[in-house]
């Protein structure tokens, strides 16, 4: 299938599934409202399929820089205390999280 025809039609977006991918809890009201609004926005975005872009290179960002490296040397960083300063839960200089493994 040519790229010109591969554009998805604005179908109903499965907001519940996408919200799960995004780790974002939504209320049923939000799911309904965002579903309708995003369908509307995707309908507008459809206009991009008017263009033939088969021969066009993508632009990830506008600056022609590649592979910017720094020297592999130690340099100062923020302290453990500063890094932990905004932690919602901490103990012994570590972040406390819910149990992951049974």
């Amino acid at each position, binding site marked *: 299938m040519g790229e010109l025809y591969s554009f998805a039609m604005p179908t109903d977006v499965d907001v519940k599934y996408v919200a799960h*991918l995004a780790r974002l809890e939504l209320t049923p009201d939000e799911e309904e409202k965002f579903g309708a609004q995003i369908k509307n926005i995707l309908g507008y975005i459809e*206009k991009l399929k008017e263009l033939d*872009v088969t021969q*066009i290179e993508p*632009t990830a960002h*506008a*600056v022609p820089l590649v592979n910017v490296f720094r020297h592999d040397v130690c340099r100062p960083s923020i302290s453990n205390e500063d890094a932990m300063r*905004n*932690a919602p839960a901490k103990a012994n200089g570590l972040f406390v999280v819910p149990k992951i493994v049974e």
Partner: protein
Amino acid sequence: MLNQLTLSQLTQKLASSEISARQIVESCLAQIGRVDGKIHAFLSYNAEDALAQADAADKALAAGATHAEKPLLGLPIGIKDVIAVKDQPLQCGSKILGNFISPYNATVIEKLKNAGAIVFGRLNMDEFAMGSSTENSAFGLTRNPWDITRIPGGSSGGSAAAVAADECIATLGSDTGGSIRQPAALCGCVGLKPTYGRVSRYGLVAFASSLDQIGPFTKDVRDAAILLSVISGQDTADSTSIPQAVPDYSATLTGDIKGLKLGLAKEYMIGGLDREVSAAMQAAVKQYEKLGAEIVEISLPHTDYAVATYYIIATAEASANLARFDGIRYCARVDGADPLELYSKTRGAGFGPEVKRRIILGTYVLSSGYYDAYYLRAQKVRTLIRQDFLNAFEKVDAVLTPTTPTAAFKAGEKTDDPLQMYLSDIFTISCNLAGICGISIPGGFTQSPKLPIGLQLLGKPFGEETILKLAHAYERSTVWHGERPGMLN
């Protein structure tokens, strides 16, 4: 009233010991006390800390420090709540960050401090810089000083309103699709978005990393040049900043623009353009001809695709960038039985509606089966949009446009229709996609009510000197920038 003066005017008065830095800060604090209850540009500020910085500047001045070494010595600069200032709150206009306190300074803050500036206050914004009206802040609206029933623009609405209401001498904001230029236009001040890579993004909370830039809001073009010279330059902490020398931008403000070629894009003469904005644009064209610029018609054929391209690329990048707000290392955590539940609940409770909507859209356009159709296609159209500008800049030195299709709209007018809100960014968005620079300057007023109209100059990559020169020549031959909102009189 020192708070009404510009950076360059105050510099002279400080240098001649006519005034002190403390008096400048006191004057700004008094103005905030008078008007910020109505405007709500500031989320917070620390008066004691600002006065202590002012006293330190006065001491340095007394000891012989000069503005040649420290160009902003003793001058207060307000900061949008998306740029990290060590030991100050950083909330990005959002509830999700809780009581976050920055552990370090953004590079632009280090540069301001090295230049002697007084870094002052946290300015209101649309949550995570997503919006065009500052109505998406979790901490309440900012009002337009020209009419408090209207929005100041966004996302840097607080930064624009604070300058327009003389609460601060100059401020910093960030611009991803017009978030500096659009509020500058709607509030009647000068706002500049530098070329992508001109200013370090280190310490700027990322919205869309390939589009974001930090830039100044000021009362005149000279001040924008002064501030841009201070904050520009390559930074080892931002690998997308460019190793290009930083000129003294104010040296370019000669007033002589004879022979410069100014492009008018036929695609920007759209139907939705307000009659008075269109008239201001025509008057500006005449003015530029009178000043000796040559007007050239150009074409930017992919203009009509810019908004759609932007809302794919910006939301895709945002959905990835905002993954870091998960309630583990920071954020107002909402507990869950397992990490997954904790993430979802924390993010569901902490993000506002516009941020959620964009995360959903961004996640969708990147999701399996849709990536090629949306994200990859948008990146290719981005190439075409950038090429439009590079072609145009072979014929002209800059492009002149209105900054916005209309003057400031009423609060609440567009909140229920995100697409209409997005379309109000039509003239500013291409600049970020193309990675070029742009400035908005006052270009007139609507009659009734009296509201500012903005003119935009778009320049080549690293063409800031040219757009500043053109902006300055127009400014000094017109009266708009000297007008002040009625509520301040």
